[in-house]
């Protein structure tokens, strides 16, 4: 983690009663989430504190904490866990909130992330994204997997295991499905897979390559890049691959479509003016308007869910760098100090971007705040990781 926020809230997250006895270190997950956001600074908090306690505020003020968290976890007779916590305002000596939730063992991490979200929103006024998920691709030798993990990079599960490349994963707006491109039949084909059940369907398998799937905000339409009529052009289709109609008409390469959050426009990459640049076209069809002008090679556009910011990757000599641009007007700003950036994706609260890059000879996943000041590196494994996409709220 690097970068210091303007004013971090000093918070003491004390060990939850009985958490040593359960599979997940709940208070540690909460503390790590809050610190990773860059908006909180963890204060030394030894021992255990449960939600029924009457903490001595003077003690915590001496430790320079502004906020205090304690809790407990109890295993129920049916094997589920009762997770409870309380948040105190140390300065005022008041309770700010408390919750209890019952979860199965597999959702203990989720319970901790939801506590961190509650605290984040209560103390900063901003909705947290700790309980959201990410999807990404790993490559180890000749084996590829599509993985789903918590937003902190932990708890990864394999959604697809393949001997051929997987690229361009895309979450459905309800978070229940992933679209992606698989080369399992020796060409690029777009599939949609239900996350919980593993059921999958090929939605685009026309002559040539089928790629770059993107969901409309209502989840009913997919934009894809097809080469069936020659070149690479953008088409729209129903979520099951029906009702295919062509959207772009150019002699160049048109690809990487993404819907605007209001569903009315589609941003995409086109090299119709020479090198690849970001353009915008009405989803109902019409003239395309160029959006990026700085630099000769701009790709991988993504729009923040609040519709305000465009993030993309720009090539400068041999370096590929992440840029953000205010869509209401403003110059593009570089937000990374690495030179192999790819595949940016916004968090659902529009405050962070996850992207892939290279560090120490490995592909890694990084997150950054929009001003580039707060960065973190998600836990990297032995495998190369790439193509991260941030899932929506709600699980």
């Amino acid at each position, binding site marked *: 983690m690097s970068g210091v926020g303007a004013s971090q809230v000093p918070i003491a997250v004390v060990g939850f009663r009985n958490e040593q006895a359960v599979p997940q270190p709940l208070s540690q997950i909460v503390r790590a989430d809050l610190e990773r956001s860059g908006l909180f600074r963890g204060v030394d908090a030894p021992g255990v504190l449960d939600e029924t306690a009457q903490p001595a505020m003077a003690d915590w003020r001496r430790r320079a904490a502004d906020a205090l968290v304690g809790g407990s976890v109890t295993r129920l007779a049916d094997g589920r866990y009762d997770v409870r916590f309380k948040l105190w305002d140390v300065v005022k000596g008041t309770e700010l909130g408390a919750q209890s939730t019952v979860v199965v063992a597999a959702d203990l991490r989720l319970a901790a992330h939801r506590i961190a979200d509650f605290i984040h929103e209560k103390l900063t006024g901003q909705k947290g994204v700790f309980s959201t998920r990410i999807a990404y691709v790993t490559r180890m030798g000749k084996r590829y997997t599509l993985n789903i993990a918590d937003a902190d990079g932990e708890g990864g599960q394999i959604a697809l295991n393949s001997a051929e490349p997987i690229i361009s994963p895309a979450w459905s707006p309800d978070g229940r499905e992933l679209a992606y491109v698989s080369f399992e039949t020796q060409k690029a084909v777009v599939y949609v897979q239900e996350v919980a059940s593993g059921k999958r369907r090929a939605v685009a398998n026309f002559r040539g390559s089928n790629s770059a799937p993107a969901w409309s905000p209502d989840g009913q339409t997919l934009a894809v890049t097809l080469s069936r009529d020659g*070149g690479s052009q953008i088409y729209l289709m129903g979520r099951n691959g029906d009702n295919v109609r062509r959207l772009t008409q150019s002699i160049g390469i048109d*690809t*990487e479509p993404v819907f605007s959050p209001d569903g009315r426009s589609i941003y995409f990459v086109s090299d119709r003016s020479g090198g690849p640049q970001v353009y915008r076209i009405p989803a109902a069809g019409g003239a395309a308007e160029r959006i990026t002008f700085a630099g000769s090679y701009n790709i991988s556009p993504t729009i923040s869910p609040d519709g305000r910011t465009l993030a993309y990757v720009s090539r400068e000599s041999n370096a590929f760098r992440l840029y953000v641009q205010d869509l209401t007007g403003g110059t593009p700003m570089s937000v990374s100090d690495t030179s192999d950036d790819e595949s940016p994706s916004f968090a659902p609260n529009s405050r962070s971007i996850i992207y892939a890059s290279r560090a120490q000879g490995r592909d890694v996943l990084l997150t950054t705040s929009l001003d580039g000041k707060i960065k973190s590196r998600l836990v990297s494994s032995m495998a190369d990781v790439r193509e991260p996409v941030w899932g929506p709220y709600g699980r």
Partner: protein
Amino acid sequence: MTSNSTSFRPTQKLLWAALCAVALAGCGSNVKLDDKNVPVESRTVSGADSNTSGAAQSQVTPVDLTKNGGAGVFAGTGKVVYFDFDSYTVRDDARPVIDANAKVLAANKTAKLAVEGHTDERGGREYNLSLGQKRAEAVVRALTLAGATDGQLEPTSFGKERPAVSGSDEAAYAKNRRVELVTR
């Protein structure tokens, strides 16, 4: 005793012979054998009516798909075309590969090739997938101009996902910017 043997075992032979004898013995035939001379019909088994003079009617000519490592009719033709950086123009040095494969395709209407485009590792995955597709389509165009039929070819792309050689220097990049012709 091999299980592949089609001959009967000795005991089975005896049994079968016995059965035949019984069957024949029990055959009270009511058909009189004609004792007139029955002309022996002469039937030409081979030669006169067949298209290939002298060829046996039982002839079978084998087709060995495993010959030449599976290349079949494409045996001996080059299989890779290389490209310059950011380019999908088929260079002059690809001529021998194009012509040799087009000739085979023109002579064998059921033969098919997958035409797979690739790029070097620099740049975005989707944009490179499209660039590889353009390279494949340029090769398909060159092949059809040289005598192949469109339906025998499918242009596809792996973008930068399947490099031929690893490495981040110009030598590796040059070997990865390519189109491969793959028998299907």
